[in-house]
């Protein structure tokens, strides 16, 4: 059964879209990630124009992040104050990102830029995940204790001015690195169509030393608002949010996520991270291959004023 996607301007098989949404939803539930970094490349593989894939991906992340954020809010593992500071950076980053996005689109380099960013980020994150989890598995096999963290180590981040006390997180931290992190993630949200949790969570833990229990909830809080804002601005500037595509992805995604969570609870952490790392690397590799192989046609045409 095919449906016509009005903004992407092509007909797709509805079961492939639902399957994609469910699979990514399942993985996002299993690994506790938003799934934007998987859904956008998958849509590009399925010939959805990258412009539409990115904007629609951001919209889909709103849905997949919201139930997680509600859970964390109920449990009290969400630092509103910290989240709001992140959000200030996130919203300005997303605005700059949309500007970069429109500029790249005008000069015809958007598709290339999106692919390159994905190859770099997926390659780096997937590689690190795999490395770290394989090491952890080997240590577990040899019955060694986990590598010791170095607490009390005076980090450069803690020497920055403009310090503010975040009661819920029980930290006293400068707002500069927080806003900067939010800003960088905001750019990625609007250019790549991702929530950015896969970068924000490790950055908050290892760079800002924010207690792990509030990290996921707080990052979800910021992701919801930045992706919602990006969706609206993408819709207003590039007219590239495909609501039909987004609806089927979300519907399948939120259901898939529920089953993913159940399976994820039964698997061991290192194995999960190794699997996710492999998956992320595979997606990145597929994009890299597409950049290198000789295209079917070296010419392309865009119609319409303003392109």
């Amino acid at each position, binding site marked *: 059964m095919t449906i016509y996607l*009005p903004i992407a301007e092509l007909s797709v098989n509805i079961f492939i879209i639902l399957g994609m949404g469910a699979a990514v939803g399942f993985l996002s539930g299993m690994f506790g990630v938003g799934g934007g970094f998987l859904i956008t490349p998958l849509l590009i593989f399925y010939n959805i124009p990258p412009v539409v894939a990115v904007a629609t991906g951001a919209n889909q992340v*709103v849905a997949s992040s919201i139930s997680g954020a509600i859970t964390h809010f109920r449990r009290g593992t969400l630092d509103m104050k910290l989240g709001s500071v992140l959000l200030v950076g996130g919203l300005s980053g997303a605005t700059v990102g949309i500007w970069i996005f429109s500029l790249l689109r005008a000069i*015809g380099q958007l598709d290339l830029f999106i692919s390159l960013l994905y190859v770099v980020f997926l390659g780096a994150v997937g590689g690190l995940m795999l490395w770290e989890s394989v090491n952890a598995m080997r240590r577990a096999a040899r019955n060694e204790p986990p590598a010791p963290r170095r607490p009390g180590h005076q980090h450069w981040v803690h020497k920055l001015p403009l310090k503010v006390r975040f009661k819920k997180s029980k930290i006293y931290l400068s707002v500069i690195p927080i806003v900067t992190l939010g800003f960088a993630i905001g750019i990625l949200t609007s250019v790549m169509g991702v929530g950015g949790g896969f970068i924000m969570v490790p950055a908050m833990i290892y760079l800002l030393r924010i207690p792990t229990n509030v990290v996921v909830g707080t990052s979800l809080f910021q992701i919801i608002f930045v992706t919602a804002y990006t969706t609206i*601005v993408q819709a207003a500037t590039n007219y590239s949010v495909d609501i039909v595509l*987004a609806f089927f992805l*979300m519907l399948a995604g*939120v259901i898939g996520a529920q089953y993913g969570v159940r399976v994820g609870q039964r698997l061991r952490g290192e194995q999960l991270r190794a699997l996710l790392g492999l998956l992320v690397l595979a997606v990145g590799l597929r994009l890299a291959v597409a950049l290198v192989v000789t295209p079917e046609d070296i*010419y392309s045409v865009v119609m319409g004023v303003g392109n």
Partner: protein
Amino acid sequence: MPWRVLPLLLALLLPSLAAAQMLPGQGTQAEREGLEIGTSTSEIAITSDFRGADLTIFGAVTNTDDLLLAIGQYDVVVVLEGPREDATVRKKERVFGIWINASSMTFADVPHSYSMSSSRSIDDITTPLDLTGEGIGIDHIPLRPIDFAGNFNSLNEFRTAFRRLQQGGGLYERDPSGVRFVSSNLFKASLRLPANIPNGVHTVRAYLFKSGKFVTQKSQPLRVIKTGIEQTITDAAHEQPIFYGCFAVLMAVLTGWGASLIFRKD
């Protein structure tokens, strides 16, 4: 208004003048052939699941020379021309092993779609020079560059690529046997409407040739309107983009929130 009555008078007078003519091929200015076309509608509404269709256009050649008609000296070309827009053609090149868009050229006011039918191949009807002069045929649509990045000397390369791509995508089509004379001077043209036909005001153009010489042309607007839920969504996205974006976010919030309510374990 005398100038309004004049064509009517001429139309009434012309058949008698034509009948009085003795020798073929010696028509004077007053006896020039005329061309009439008619479509059953000035508006085509197509649903979003449209997979392409044929549009039939009827027309008549008036004041024909019977002898020339009999030996097939009249040729008709009918074109359905889509709305005019700027078109940018980009060319990829390998840079450090990666294929990137390295050069581009923008052509001004080219038809988004172009479907042509003729009584025989247009290259057999008249000379390339005449075709270019009138801008008839996929290879003769004027492609005027207004902007380029890269080497301007490759202009012809970009023009060829544009024509090839538009044909490959089904937007530019030709049928050298799409025009048939159903009676001595009545013709029927079938034009292909591609599945991805653009919305907007198209133009039906008919050209008449006599013994390889361009005689006259006639044009008529034809509005193509897409209907259905998908088109409503497209219109909303372009006309109320902020509202559309907010709606997309609301939909996401409700889907996410709804799922967390339905699957709540406590």
